[in-house]
């Protein structure tokens, strides 16, 4: 029998998560459809005034993306917890923090990345210019992995708790505020012709911090939930 290194184990987890998600297409499509529906409701609700839509666009698109990314968080560890796979991961000789990081990466690939790709289409409804659409994609590309990583802490803390969905939202939404402010702020600044370097740097800093600290916090939360 061949031996696997750390990356081999993480690759096995990534393959597993992606193949399971592709067999349960509804779970991948739900956040995307939610994103499209919510972002499309605003123009219908506030009317066709282009200046107002343009001003609202960054905030609306970012809040919609944030809520959509949160939809699938509850299931991040729940299925593995219910069937016992999470115990096996916790007892693996591979550090649980690395497995958690791999789970967050798959969450980004399956929930966050489709939102990044869909965002410019929705941005057109609000009259965003092509450059701002590019900035919107860039901010989402930097921001949605942070959402997945921070969200994984909440998913681990609420594992097995009744009414976990609501509790998860209450725990995680306040932590999402900096990502929302700098993400939407960058698009708004670009639309106003201002510099966006600071916003992007802060988004990148949040991502780096999340990459280092979120898996550790999630690992600890998971061990507590499994006790």
């Amino acid at each position: 029998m061949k031996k696997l290194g750390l990356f081999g184990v993480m690759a096995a987890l990534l393959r597993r998560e992606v193949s399971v998600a592709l067999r349960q297409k509804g779970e991948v499509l739900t956040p995307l459809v939610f994103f499209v529906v919510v972002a499309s409701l605003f123009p219908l609700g506030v009317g066709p005034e282009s200046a107002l839509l343009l001003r609202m666009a960054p905030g609306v698109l970012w809040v919609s993306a944030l809520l959509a990314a949160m939809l699938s968080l509850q299931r991040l560890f729940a299925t593995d917890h219910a069937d016992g796979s999470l115990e096996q991961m916790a007892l693996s000789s591979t550090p649980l923090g690395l497995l958690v990081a791999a789970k967050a990466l798959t969450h980004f690939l399956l929930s966050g990345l489709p939102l990044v790709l869909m965002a410019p289409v929705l941005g057109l409804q609000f009259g965003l210019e092509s450059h701002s659409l590019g900035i919107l994609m860039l901010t989402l590309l930097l921001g949605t992995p942070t959402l997945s990583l921070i969200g994984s802490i909440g998913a681990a803390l609420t594992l097995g708790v009744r009414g976990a969905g609501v509790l998860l939202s209450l725990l995680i939404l306040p932590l999402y505020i900096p990502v929302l402010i700098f993400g939407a702020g960058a698009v708004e600044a670009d639309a106003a012709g201002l510099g966006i370097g600071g916003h992007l740097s802060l988004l990148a800093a949040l991502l780096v911090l999340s990459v280092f600290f979120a898996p550790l916090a999630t690992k600890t939360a998971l061990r507590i939930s499994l006790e």
Partner: protein
Amino acid sequence: MAGANGVGKTSLLRMVCGLAPIESGQILWNDTPIHSQSDVYRQDLCYLGHLNSLQESMTVNENLVFTAALAGNAPEPTQLQEVLAHFGVRGRGEQLVKHLSQGQKRRVALSRLALSQARLWVLDEPFVAMDEKGVRMLADLIASHLGKGGLAVITSHQQVDIGTIAPQMLELRA
């Protein structure tokens, strides 16, 4: 390990695995507390609890490959076929787990033992949902593991002969 329902057999096994905290005392592995050598200990440990640890949307082979990967192993396809045949689920490798019966799922879960290279097996009610043939097969596998110098901590309500090795019985009382 024997004892009435609710006496704490599963809790004790989870402590042995390091999944549950210990209020007093310590658990040693090679004369060292397990919490101070968790990485080494986990390499030596294979735990099968009440749950089968099988993802329903994956095939039997995919599940076995994944759980082997968690232990740092990559079994060959022929090994998977042999193990499944040994456990009486021959030809089910490409079948989704959700299409198996409870007994077959348990057999697939237990077939992980044959792929495991861990020295210590911790098994919580492994004979549940197994027919007579399955019980014998599992008992022989455990006997073979013990014969190779391995260890097994098992809870069971059934009295099963495991080879010629006399087990040490521990009865928990409330």
